[in-house]
């Protein structure tokens, strides 16, 4: 209240109950028992799904390629352990719908036999192109949740003259501490990954933004990077959604990314801190991305921990390992409680995007009834983007989508700050997601009708062309006939003349 003028670099945001102390004091559990079966979806990234290269019954080694990347924006997936390919089938995905997607099932043989790994002599002397290539081949994607193929970002960065690599270590979501622990325990590797990324993009400097509720991680990172003056480790205030890359960028540099642009447009590339670790593993150890640290927490979990699990482990197994009390669980969430997805079943695999598995109890998700909006404008204060959530929601309620778009619907990042603070418990984000879906539907319908129109027009044109061609053909034939006739006549005349003269 006494901050008369807000920091212009830090708009909106909320301070949610952190719930981080349940997991942050405990080290990362690295001896998670290897599951019997692993389910590896071929699509764990933004872009085209990978194409399986293994056959059922084939023996694979740990780290072996299972499905290769297709197209420019895609990423391969690798075997998290050695074993037999049991099946390639459709299996429920870790998605609110739990719809099945193509999944490679491995039956582990328990030997953990590594495939042959290529480890460069001096990773920091590799060509930038080489770095990008190896990162891409290792299937590294953005581990903050966006799962955009990292190699694509690195090459984009190299082409666009980057001045800053921003490492997002905000971890602003409540409950989650996997990046926090990773920085505390593996800061050296992370800094190695950052240096490789800098080299891969020809970028001069990197900035690491860490929320100030993680002082140990901050110190560890500072220690690890003290020999590299081009890596700046900075603390940022603890205020959700600080981990929104654009917010962190604005806070640290004062720069804003234009609404219709990308970070590269202003010379910045943003990567998650866990991605930096994956890059280190991919280049320095030659290991593809086949495991990740996951925060398992929530009131229904007896032993909340950060666990390093192989990709493809069923969430139900991870939860059981951490002592899930099934009767207490009211909602299963993948990711953080603010933006994570509620999953209908726990028998879905851990994927690259999965930074948290939360088993929330009824007390955690207390859902009071929805009351009318009292226009308290808490949502306006909380919105980090600068939107008017209450106005947008009332427009959407009245089915005035266009006017909601005018108010900035498309700029909404679905961070959930507005829903969080709403005293009437109005599901604002729900409205916005619904409206965005409607817009897509409408666009598709428009596209379809345009397409139909175009096809009809094409057909008409084609018919017209055929008709004209036929006419022209007929005309030509007629002319040819006439010419032939004339020639015949001329010949006859000549003959007659010749006969005459003869």
């Amino acid at each position, binding site marked *: 209240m006494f901050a008369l003028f807000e920091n212009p670099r830090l708009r909106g945001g909320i301070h949610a109950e952190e719930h981080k102390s349940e997991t942050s004091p405990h080290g990362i559990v690295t001896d998670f028992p290897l599951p019997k079966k692993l389910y590896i979806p071929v699509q764990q990234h933004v872009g085209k799904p990978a194409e399986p290269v293994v056959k059922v019954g084939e023996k694979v080694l740990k780290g072996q390629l299972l499905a290769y990347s297709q197209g420019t924006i895609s990423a391969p997936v690798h075997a998290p352990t050695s074993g037999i390919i049991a099946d390639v089938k459709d299996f429920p995905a870790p998605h609110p719908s739990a719809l099945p997607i193509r999944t490679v099932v491995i039956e582990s043989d328990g030997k953990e036999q590594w495939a042959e790994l290529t480890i460069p002599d001096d990773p920091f002397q590799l060509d930038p192109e080489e770095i990008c290539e190896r990162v891409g081949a290792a299937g590294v994607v953005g581990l903050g949740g966006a799962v955009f193929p990292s190699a694509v970002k690195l090459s984009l960065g190299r082409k666009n003259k980057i001045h800053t690599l921003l490492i997002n270590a905000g971890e602003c979501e409540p409950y989650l501490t996997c990046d926090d622990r990773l920085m505390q325990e593996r800061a050296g590797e992370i800094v190695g990954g950052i240096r490789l990324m800098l080299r891969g993009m020809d970028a001069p400097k990197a900035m690491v933004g860490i929320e100030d509720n993680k002082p140990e991680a901050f110190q560890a990172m500072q220690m690890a990077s003290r020999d590299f003056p081009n890596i700046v480790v900075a603390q940022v205030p603890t205020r959700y959604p600080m981990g929104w890359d654009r917010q962190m960028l604005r806070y640290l540099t004062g720069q804003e990314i234009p609404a219709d642009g990308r970070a590269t447009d202003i010379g910045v590339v943003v990567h998650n801190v866990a991605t930096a670790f994956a890059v280190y593993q991919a280049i320095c150890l030659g290991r593809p991305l086949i495991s990740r640290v996951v925060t398992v927490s929530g009131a229904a979990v007896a032993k909340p921990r950060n666990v390093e699990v192989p990709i493809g482990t069923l969430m139900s197994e991870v939860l059981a390992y951490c002592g899930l009390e099934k009767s207490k669980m009211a909602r299963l969430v993948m990711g953080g409680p603010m933006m994570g997805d509620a999953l209908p079943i726990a028998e879905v695999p851990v994927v690259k995007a999965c930074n948290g598995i939360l088993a929330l109890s009824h007390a955690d998700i207390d859902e009071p009834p929805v009351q009318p909006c*009292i226009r308290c404008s808490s949502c306006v204060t909380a919105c980090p983007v600068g939107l008017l959530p209450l106005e947008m929601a009332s427009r959407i309620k009245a089915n005035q989508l266009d006017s909601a778009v005018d108010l900035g619907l498309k700029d909404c990042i679905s961070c959930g700050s507005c829903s969080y603070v709403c005293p009437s418990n109005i599901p604002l984000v729900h409205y916005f997601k619904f409206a965005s879906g409607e817009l897509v539907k409408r666009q598709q319908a428009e596209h379809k009708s345009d397409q139909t129109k175009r096809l009809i027009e094409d057909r008409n044109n084609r018919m017209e062309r055929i008709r004209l061609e036929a006419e022209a053909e007929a005309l030509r034939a007629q002319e040819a006939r006439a010419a032939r006739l004339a020639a015949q006549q001329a010949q006859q005349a000549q003959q007659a003349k010749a006969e005459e003269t003869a």
Partner: protein
Amino acid sequence: MSSKPISGPHVAATRRVDQIMRLVIIALAPATALGVLLFGWPALYLLAVTVLSAMAFEGFCLKLKGVPAMPYLRDGSAIVTGLLVVMTLPPWAPWWIGVVGSAIAIILGKHVYGGLGQNLFNPAMLARVALLISFPIEMTTWANVSPLLTGPGVIDSLAITFGGLDNTDAVTGATTLGLVKTEFSQNHLLPSILSDYSGFLAFIGWERGSLGETSSLLLLGGGIWLMRQGVIKWHGPLALLATIFLLSSIFHLWDSKHYLSPWVHLNSGAVMLVAFFIVTDYVTSPNTPLGQVIFGVGCGLLIFVIRSWGGYPEGTGFAILLMNAVTPLIDHYIRPRIYGRYRNGKPLDITNP
């Protein structure tokens, strides 16, 4: 576990509408209590009648609307409205003034528009203005300060509130603003008009006036407490108070015979109540901080204009209603800047330094 797709966030802040209303009631309580203390049992009766009738009208409207009344009645918004209505009434006003005020506020001010959150005008201010215009005598008969213990007793007070007030002149007088307005009309000039005025007593609230408006101290305290609780923001109140302060200072310095000093302005009438509890009304004030500043400045300006040159001694009710009418316009034009865009909504230009 539910199988319905649920959108995040999966956790929520704990402050709810009824809690906000409760905090507002707590913030209003000291000023109301002082009103009861200063003006005795009649004030207490009026308070009870007004608040209870406000709740009754709320329940009645909800019933007509066909929705279950209890969840809405429990949110406390009707109590806040009733409380704000009675705080602006003369403390010894007859009971039906309170009932009519509640009816105007709840039925005409709120439910005609669709209920909680839908109204254009502040219900309490609407009631105040409607009563002032309709019943000028009852609404400008101000009881002298007659504290609970030394004033009329429990039974006599029943007669005052429910039976009608006789021997009016013996126990009533004018408020500071009313006195000034009448004296001006008789061509008297300022310093002498206010010879009995004590700035200190006006500040703590020991003066004639509406039931809950007299004490600047307690209203200011309640308001600041609400700010610290995060229920209201500082923009509107500060803008209003600063505007009145600035305008009255300028005019007072220029001609102190005809224009009241800022101290009198700020400590008379409904200014403090309006600044912290009406200007900050969520429903009828703009959404954005800048909008709230404009709203506050507008209210302050209108209050000063009506007080100084208008026909009424006090102009807060009119000022608020006029600015309420402008709120949708302010909200239309004053919007926060969206990330990555200029104020006009165009995306920022791409500049790679």
